């Protein structure tokens, strides 16, 4: 018997299909803001569960409760911290044959798509109670702008932002499904959107997670962590003055990037930039302060095409030139 059921046609049949595939996870935590519980979903009939990589898993006494109340001990099989993903496996003497999701089908969906969010948020489901279901639509599929410093989150990449309040305590590791029953993603942690400073409800897309889930289950996993370059400070290869720009003194939290002076015969002088021009874009990145200008210029490499857009009076003026070799 196949573990994967054919696609359902309505939200009700999808809910009926999904609930037996969601599990409640209990582990370490219970102090302060660390919740000792989270959510997971079955990805193999043998009891492999995809869930969020979190301190909840950091224990020898990890337990998992199925929708019907059956309780298992579980062990962490592997994790991909860069995706906030962990795979745990139920311990069982007998061969298990559990219903599960098809994670290999790399389903994607766009804004406006109706979704159902399944999770053990706030631990409201106990014993043989299935997890809670929320509904909404996808607001956007976008790169998550996290508020730096507020939360440690290693994942950076596309997420689904949804208009249902899915990201609650204990909800991380839950499943996001389309109304017609396709697995779209895994509900993420609680984070704030750095650009709007508001809480954001997001899920990690299944097409991003799929490969790592398979690799961990099959034991062929090679964490990208090892290959990843050590974290470095942002590079500081170029400064505005390297192109002939002298900016106004950076005195405010967000000093607008106004040009104070243009060095004679410099690259920008030849391109026609003038004092009092406001730099607004560097290679399509919005420059909202002198600090972001420094960051963007610092990352350039010799030979890159540098496109600067400045605002002069009420006009936008665009210039381009090649980045010269670094001045050592």
């Amino acid at each position, binding site marked *: 018997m196949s573990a994967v059921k054919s696609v359902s046609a309505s939200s009700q049949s999808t809910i009926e299909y999904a609930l037996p595939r969601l599990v409640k996870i209990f582990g370490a935590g219970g102090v302060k803001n660390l919740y000792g519980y989270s959510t997971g979903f079955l990805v193999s009939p043998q009891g492999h569960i995809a869930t969020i990589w979190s301190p909840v898993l950091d224990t020898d006494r990890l337990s998992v409760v199925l929708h019907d109340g059956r309780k298992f001990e579980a062990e962490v099989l592997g994790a991909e911290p860069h995706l906030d993903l962990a795979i745990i496996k139920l311990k069982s003497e007998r061969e298990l044959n559990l219903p599960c999701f098809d994670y290999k089908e790399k389903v994607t969906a766009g*804004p*406006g798509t109706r979704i159902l969010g399944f999770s053990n948020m706030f631990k409201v489901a106990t014993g043989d109670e299935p997890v809670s279901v929320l509904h909404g639509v996808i607001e956007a599929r976008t790169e998550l702008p996290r508020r730096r410093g507020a939360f440690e989150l290693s994942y950076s990449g596309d997420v689904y932002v949804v208009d249902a309040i899915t990201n609650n305590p204990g909800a991380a590791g839950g499943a996001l499904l389309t109304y017609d029953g396709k697995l779209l993603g895994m509900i993420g942690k609680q984070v704030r959107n750095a650009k709007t400073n508001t809480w954001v409800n997001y899920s990690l897309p299944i097409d991003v997670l799929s490969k790592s889930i398979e690799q961990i289950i099959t034991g062929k996993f090679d964490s990208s962590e090892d290959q990843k370059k050590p974290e470095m400070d942002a590079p500081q290869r170029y400064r505005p003055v390297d192109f002939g720009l002298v900016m106004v003194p950076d005195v405010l939290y967000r000093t607008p*990037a106004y040009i104070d002076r243009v060095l004679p015969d410099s690259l920008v002088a030849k391109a026609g930039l003038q004092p009092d021009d406001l730099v607004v874009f560097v290679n399509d990145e919005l420059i909202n302060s002198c600090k972001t200008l420094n960051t963007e210029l610092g990352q350039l490499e010799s030979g890159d095409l540098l496109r600067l857009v400045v605002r002069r009076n009420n006009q*936008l003026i665009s210039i381009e030139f090649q980045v010269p070799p670094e001045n050592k």
Partner: protein
Amino acid sequence: MSNLFRLLTLLLALSGSVEIIQAQAPHLEILEERAFKQAAAFVNPSIVRIETVGGQDRVGKLITGTGPTSGVIVSRDGLIISSAFNFIGKPSSILVTLPDGRRFPAQNVATDHLKMLTLLKIDAQNLPVPLAIPESEIQVGMWSIALGRTFELDQPSISVGIVSALERIWGKAIQTDAKISPVNYGGPLVDINGRVMGILVPLSPGASAETAGVEWYDSGIGFAIPMSDVLKVIPRLNTGKDLYPGLLGITLTGQGDLSTDMKLDRVRYGSPAQEAGVKAGDTLTQLDGNAVAMHSQVKQVLMNKYAGDAVSLVVKREGAAEPLSFKATMVEKLVPFESGFLGILPQRTAINQVEAGVGIRFIFSKSAAEEAGLKSGDRILEFNQQKVSDPGALALLVNHLRPEETAELLISRDQKQQTVKVILQSPPHTVEAELPTQALPSRTAAENQKDKIKTGHLKEELPGSESTYWAYIPENYNPDYEYGLMVWIHPPGNTMESTIFNEWKSICEQRGIIIVGPAAEDVIRWNRDETEFVKEVVESMRKRYQIDNTRIFLLSHGDGSEFAFDLAFKYRELFRGVAVSEATLNNKPPETDPDYPLSLYFVLNAANPLNQLLQPQIEAIREMNYPTVFELIKKEDPAGQYLDKTRLEAIGRWADSLDRI
């Protein structure tokens, strides 16, 4: 649709099985989902992304976002409407990106501070203006889709909900349960066909600050300003002038939005309502032709109007047979009224003495009266061609004029009449360094005893009341003259009766002031509802002794001051002054009113940490045009000691000049 129907009937006829049909027809949910996406795609070309450069990182407690926000095209030639919230950081530069990727610098044309919208202008042509749904078609329960352009440039963000209510926040907004947040503020709320219902903004029913309502983001309570209202206001905004909520200047008697007490408690002096002829005590019955019987109905009309908008009122007035109609034009700001000040103290005359005009007892230094050459002993007979028979009549005329206004006085000096022109000034924030007392013909205690007038230090209670009070009536009290009344409000925990009595006795005798000291029922604290008791004590003193209504004032120390200010602001017709030591102002003063002048006096030890708090308060209340004396004691007084002689005498001079004109 009819094709589908035909197919269904055919299938039914052929197989007789319902299951097959369900498998063939897309589920309603999927059709709806398709409609959401089509609605978003339909309006998509008209939603722009707005980015800002520079500006404050914080507005109040709110950290402003740095991310992009949204706006909606409202004219082919580059007008874009957005939420005012998106510009609260006062950015130095605004950039607009169209869905096709073209970027433009934008001008902030004007902001609507009532509906919290900002109009931008970019230099572009042939822009797609979205279709608006006629307002009459919008109904509660309809699908409403909130769109923004903050996440991705190529596709708008989508949140789906229904219309939860119409005419919310005093008639201003459509309410929706779609998730509204900085992600889509400034974006459109559209119906299932992609027609714009309104522009998404944060709003709050109780507050009107520029960040009000943001705390409700993503809560299922979101608001949009109806598109028909937006389009109506765009020509006004396009003139470049900001629009503000309109103010009328009336306060109703009852409390709370559900109150049905429609009597006007106050009509602010100099406000549009007062200038239109509306008076305190009138009962409001209609606004703009609609009957109003509840406070919320009044808000519904008035809180949806701009400064410059007209409003018509109908009131019932006691004594008027017919209801009266008025028309007023609302204003942006109600300017606190400042009464003019002539700079004299009137002679205190015996009650039964009848003499033409008002005699001058004292001229304030550097006052309008001094500049005009008035002298003590002069008599003012006429003020602006109106005969003045007593100080009250003169004060009424002067108080209703403003500083800088000129007046013509007819005075008599040495039996000769002459006219004097004066330019009124503002009442001073200082006390005269010297103020000679006005000697009254005194009586002896024995004479008073014979007339059964109690004098001296008394302890009494009101009939039928548990609470007690003490009083001191100078032994030389003369019932032919009016006296000032000092109402001592003791600090919690200590009546300070003997201190006050001993320290103030001689000053009060010299300056003709009676002391009364009501005691809190529980000396530990003043209860708010004890204001009534204090008022009754004052009323009873007024009945038994000759009290000058213009010289009734409150005196307090430390934590008793809060209750003293409560009293002063509640019974404005009763009290003319409040003097407090070692205290700040914890209560917000009402606006000034020329009919109820109120003077304030603060004494504070410079070493008192309250100093930091008080200084800006003094500035604020002087800004409200309350004459406010502020004396900072520089020397190190031993802690806990009451004021010294010099300070008490200064307060005495201030109390003795509360009847100034």
